[in-house]
């Protein structure tokens, strides 16, 4: 199938989601689910003595935020099934209890590649996460593979 799609969808924000304030319990549960033992993420008392001055979330915490829309309605469909082809995360600020995070999603890139399991189409969806101080918290690029 030729790589044919409406290029105007690139870079356009297709979703903006505001998340309820992050709780301490969420942070602790996420850390526990990964087996983290670093007190920065698991022990409030110790974390308060550390350089973040409070409990903070492990770095991949932002990848658990589910936006209202994962992809736009007019996302080209090059195949039947979508798979996770990879993830790139850039971290700019810590996630702290009480933070109100907002996520903006765009289609960053679309390209074609043959790989291990066949001819594949890669869509890169970019999520930009900001906090209530309008600080950039993280940028997550998802490579979605379709075939």
């Amino acid at each position, binding site marked *: 199938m030729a790589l044919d799609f409406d290029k105007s969808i690139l870079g356009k924000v297709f979703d903006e989601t505001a998340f309820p304030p992050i709780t301490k319990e969420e942070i602790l549960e996420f850390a526990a*689910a*990964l087996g983290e*033992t670093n007190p920065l993420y698991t022990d409030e008392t110790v974390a308060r003595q550390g350089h973040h001055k409070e409990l903070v979330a492990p770095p991949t915490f932002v*990848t*658990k935020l589910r936006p209202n829309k994962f992809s736009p309605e007019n996302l080209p469909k090059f195949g039947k*099934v979508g798979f996770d082809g*990879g*993830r790139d995360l850039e971290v700019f600020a810590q996630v702290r209890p009480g933070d109100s995070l907002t996520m903006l999603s765009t289609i960053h890139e679309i390209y074609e590649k043959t790989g291990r399991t066949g001819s594949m189409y890669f869509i890169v969806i970019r999520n930009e996460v900001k906090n209530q101080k309008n600080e950039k918290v993280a940028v997550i690029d998802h490579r979605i593979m379709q075939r």
Partner: protein
Amino acid sequence: MSTVYFEEIEEGDEITPIDMPLSKDQVRRYAKTANMYVARFTDDEGAKAEGLPGMIAPGVMSMGLLARMISDWNQAAEIKRIGTTFRSPVLPDRNIHLRGAVTQKHDADHTVECDLWMENDDGERWVIGTATVAVPSKA
């Protein structure tokens, strides 16, 4: 758990490996907290209906585990950037081996580049990636 300073790190250093069994319950626990409680990450039959060999660990769980390996190695490490490629589905009820190595040191900002990967018992790499990690300096 210890702090490893920039000056103590050498290019070529191994990041303390983690060898562990990955259970289905662990995967389900992660899926729940990550708002991903769907068939492919929680139920063998459901996953097979999607063409998978069985329930799999979410890609970001593997990324999270590799990030944890860095945190276990150096409690003062701050990941600035981490990227992972999911080469094969990670099936639970198996051993996973998390591995890493410091490949470059940047004097200008006290960051190190690390290779990261997850392999199975046969040495096949299910997930590979890299991270840029800021570490404290004695200077």
